[in-house]
């Protein structure tokens, strides 16, 4: 079983990748390694390799990019005339091209908007006679939705009868009266996409400095000169602020602010895919008349993930703390209550996980994408909440417009490498392919995660990748270890042991999600031995 690591896995010592030196200067610095920051960085590398991405966390996609519903919206839910809607509709159209070469799955599952008597406020329903109400629910609302979408440039919307709704999604409430199917809705794993974008950028010369916090900017004569970080200073004429919920604070540091982010969290329940695969085939949402929406979220819905897990959510709760990723009992109750109506017999017992993310809206609720007119060279990409994932390609396009103006060459590099090789996923291969891989490297035959069928080879690849996974969650996001129904009960210590071995650290230093989150606190007997020696001293 001896043998070197597979050649594609370790091109350089991992230490070097974990703690790269801070470059003295860069043509552009991106603050924030979420999906937007990484997408912008990747785009910049099409023109110049000289871009640096900074993030205070130990991995990319540590904010909202890891905790959203993976949906690529069409724009149908957005307010007409907003920047958000325009970029969403355009971003959605651009998605196939956006993910091309990244090795990330993207599929268009569509959205089914269901119209039921609960789609209108009770007082409206009561003021009508049954025929009028039926006319409203069966004809007028669906026609209105289609007209609204078409005006925004959304194509392919289709009105469905009750029968067609129930045929398309048999688990939907029998109270459905009609529906609209929007074929443009898509699914993409948001953190896999972010990781892929980051790695694609690295392949093309970008440098990622994680665990590096921005503390200020050097601005001289109204122009950006550099970024000051917890690890030193980088001279640069160009900063792209993609700091998510912290974008307002980062902008203030440069004097390029003028907007405030107020965090709003959203909780989602995730179900066992063995139970819920095909439970809903498209995303499903209950139509609610404008003004009925809960808070200011887009109402949420039921949707599959790319992997086939059913998701229900998200909620929308204003919070004070930008780090508040907790889930309250009230939110759980709200989700159950809401979806009990839309999907009367959804499999409650098959919940395997619940997660919460913090959205980054401004008070205007629209995206703030601008080249600062106060600080030259400072570009804000802020207020990016849902549908930020869907809008990403169009956001990048818009940002690049500014960046070209500000000095990023307009000429594409001839040496840009268009394809990021993805690590195969054992679970998705057929038996012949699996067998062939094991013959080459036996670690493809060592299953680490028994729920998701993740092999040792995949865990190693994640740790030795261009953006190395250095903790349990990092490995989990890249490989799906611990994402199944046992939630890491089987693989937890196995993954920790591999991380320890590969990073050359004791297992007791392995963390769940960066500093301060050790998985194990000591070795067995350590407490007792310490007590004994403590007695000796005392």
């Amino acid at each position: 079983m001896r043998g070197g690591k597979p050649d594609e896995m370790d091109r350089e010592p991992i230490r070097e990748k974990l703690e790269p030196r801070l470059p003295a200067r860069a043509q552009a610095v991106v603050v924030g390694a979420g999906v937007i920051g990484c997408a912008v960085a990747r785009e910049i590398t099409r023109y110049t390799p000289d871009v640096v991405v900074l993030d205070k966390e130990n991995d990319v996609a540590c904010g909202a990019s890891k905790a959203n519903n993976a949906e690529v919206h069409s724009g149908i839910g957005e307010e007409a005339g907003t920047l958000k809607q325009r970029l969403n509709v355009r971003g959605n159209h651009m998605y196939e091209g956006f993910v091309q070469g990244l090795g990330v799955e993207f599929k268009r599952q569509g959205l089914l908007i269901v119209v039921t008597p609960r789609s209108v406020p009770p007082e409206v329903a009561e003021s009508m006679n049954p025929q009028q109400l039926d006319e409203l629910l069966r004809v007028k609302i669906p026609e209105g939705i289609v007209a609204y979408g078409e005006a925004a440039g959304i194509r392919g919307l289709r009105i469905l009868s009750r029968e067609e709704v129930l045929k398309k999604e048999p688990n939907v409430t029998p109270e459905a009266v009609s529906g609209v199917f929007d074929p443009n809705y898509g699914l993409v794993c948001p953190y896999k996409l972010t990781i892929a974008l980051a790695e694609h950028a690295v392949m093309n010369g970008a440098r990622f400095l994680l665990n590096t916090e921005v503390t200020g900017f050097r601005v001289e004569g109204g122009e950006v000169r550099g970024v000051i970080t917890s690890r030193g200073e980088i001279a640069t004429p160009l900063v792209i602020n993609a700091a998510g919920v912290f974008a307002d604070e980062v902008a203030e540091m440069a004097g390029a602010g003028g907007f405030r982010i107020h965090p709003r969290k959203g909780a989602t329940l995730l179900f066992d895919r063995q139970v819920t695969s095909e439970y809903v085939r498209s995303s499903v949402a209950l139509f609610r008349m404008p003004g009925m929406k809960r808070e200011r979220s887009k109402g949420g819905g039921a949707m599959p993930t790319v992997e086939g897990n059913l998701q229900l959510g998200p909620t929308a709760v204003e919070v004070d703390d930008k780090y508040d990723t907790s889930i309250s009992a009230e939110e759980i109750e709200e989700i159950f209550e809401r979806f009990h109506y839309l999907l009367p017999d959804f499999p409650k017992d098959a919940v395997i996980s619940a997660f919460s993310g913090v959205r980054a809206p401004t008070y205007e609720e629209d995206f703030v994408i601008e080249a600062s007119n106060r600080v030259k060279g400072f570009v804000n990409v802020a207020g990016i909440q849902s549908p930020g994932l869907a809008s990403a390609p169009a956001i990048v396009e818009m940002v690049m417009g500014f960046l070209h103006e500000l000095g990023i060459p307009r000429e594409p590099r001839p040496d840009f490498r268009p394809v990021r090789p993805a690590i195969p996923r054992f679970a998705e291969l057929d038996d012949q392919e699996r067998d062939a891989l094991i013959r080459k490297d036996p670690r493809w035959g060592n299953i680490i995660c028994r729920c998701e069928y993740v092999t040792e080879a995949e865990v190693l690849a994640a740790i030795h990748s261009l953006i190395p996974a250095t903790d349990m969650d990092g490995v989990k996001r890249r490989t799906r270890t611990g994402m199944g129904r046992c939630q890491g009960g089987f693989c937890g210590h196995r993954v920790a042991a591999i991380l320890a071995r590969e990073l050359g650290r004791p297992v007791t230093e392995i963390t769940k999600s960066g500093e301060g989150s050790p998985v194990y606190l000591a070795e067995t007997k350590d407490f007792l031995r310490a007590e004994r020696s403590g007695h000796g001293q005392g």
Partner: protein
Amino acid sequence: MRRKHAFTCINCPLSCALELTEEDGEVLEVTGHECEVGRRYAEEEFRDPRRTVTTTVRVRNGVIPQLPVVSTRPMPEALVREAVKALADVEVDAPVRDGQVIYRDLLGTGADIIAARRLDPRSRADEEG
């Protein structure tokens, strides 16, 4: 001095709530038991409660890093924590035989601590794998 002590019988699912009355260590009365087993249990738990000690000790170069061990006979309940603490510094080398004596006459109780399983050394293949 006369005192009362409460016990819960563990010998059957009835879980009788036992009450033992003693005077200067002499058992006067047991109440609450449904059978003789319960009465005897209360007296034992009062006079000389005993427990089998089970814990692990560190093992060097084994297939796993901890070896489960067990006392060859029940030990006084009051000594269990001390017994486990005393074993915290013990380290053995693989291979270990099932039943191999790891520690003799722990805390002068006459009970030996033995290996509760066979533990093979880590093979070269394991190290390389």
